[in-house]
């Protein structure tokens, strides 16, 4: 049967699983990382997402998709959820879900916007706002000492809106082939030489990051951001087939 070729088995990927909140870490004033315990989690590829389903006491159900924020780690599944004003699922997950509470998850999902450890060549990650979450899963999956350099260009409204701020600074300081470039659209730290403004083509270039280095590019963020960033990459000469995108929502960071 063909289905035996599907990793984790067909029913495993399709099934809704019970997931228990094991831990929660605030990331910013508006975002939290949830660590869910999912018994027999089959593992996932960096960049994949899960569907999260909530069921209220009266049977009403709501389902939303969230990127996984970290590589496979046994039964622990990390999601970083950005609070959306009036969003019924994100506000519940950010404000009301307590340790020991359960939700349902389905996945891992999506085979397009993924980076497979072992995939050769440099990687250029371009994030707008909470679009950094699946890219962080890729960055965290990069083995120490890897020959594949990674560069993350991360656009956020302000320094206070940065997810994973300390970890990104630490990874960039390790001199292990990870570069992080920050772009601020509303307010920048004092003395920031770039100044404030939306992503510009020159933000995507840099020493060792020319088109000739042939990086695979992953762009994730709100729709307007993704379209503009992908257009910049194409204009710089990156072939469209090496640009992968994931977009959500209408507004930019």
């Amino acid at each position, binding site marked *: *049967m*063909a*289905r035996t*070729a*599907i990793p984790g088995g*067909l029913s495993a*990927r*399709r099934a809704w699983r019970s997931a228990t909140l094991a831990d929660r870490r605030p990331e910013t004033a508006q975002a939290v990382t949830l660590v869910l315990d999912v018994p027999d989690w089959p593992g996932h590829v960096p960049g994949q*997402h*899960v*569907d999260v389903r909530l069921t209220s006491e009266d049977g009403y159900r709501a*389902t*939303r*998709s*969230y*990127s996984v924020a970290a590589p496979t780690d046994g039964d622990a599944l990390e999601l970083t*959820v*950005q609070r*959306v004003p009036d*969003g*019924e*699922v*994100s506000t519940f997950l950010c404000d009301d879900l307590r340790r020991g509470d359960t939700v349902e998850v*389905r*996945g891992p*999902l*999506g*085979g*397009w*916007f993924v980076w497979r450890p072992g995939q050769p060549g440099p990687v250029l990650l371009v994030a707008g706002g*909470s*679009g950094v*979450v*699946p890219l962080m899963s890729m960055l965290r999956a990069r083995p120490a000492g890897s020959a594949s350099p990674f560069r993350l260009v991360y656009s956020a409204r302000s320094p206070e809106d940065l997810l994973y701020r300390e970890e990104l600074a630490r990874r960039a300081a390790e001199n292990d082939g990870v570069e992080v470039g920050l772009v601020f659209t509303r307010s920048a730290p004092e003395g920031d030489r770039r100044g404030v403004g939306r992503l510009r083509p020159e933000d995507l270039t840099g020493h060792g990051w020319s088109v000739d280095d042939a990086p695979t590019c992953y762009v*994730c963020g709100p*729709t307007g951001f993704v379209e503009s960033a992908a257009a910049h990459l194409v204009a710089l000469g990156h072939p469209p087939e090496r640009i992968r*995108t*994931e*977009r*959500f*929502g*209408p*507004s930019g960071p």
Partner: protein
Amino acid sequence: MNNESAADAAFDGNVMAGPLSEVFAVDITTAQGRCRGCGTTSVIATLRVYGPDPGLVGRCPGCDDVLVRIVRTPDAVWLDLAGLTSLRVAVPAGVAGVPASSGGDA
């Protein structure tokens, strides 16, 4: 991925992976679909998608025609693929029971 947003938000075909997994045995978001309207071939993950409620609507990046609609009711998945003339699904070569040539356009 963080698909809770304002009404009429534009997502992309990546968000269809979960609902499609209820119907198909393989990941259809990596398949290539051909638009009946303009003939553009697109990876399903790259469609512009509106939703998620009451359902997901995937549009052609070439001409904006509706290619895929998915609505989940309590006991059924409604799937409308009328905007596609073909769907090319890559399969691992040599999988038992599935000739490698079946990955071509329908």
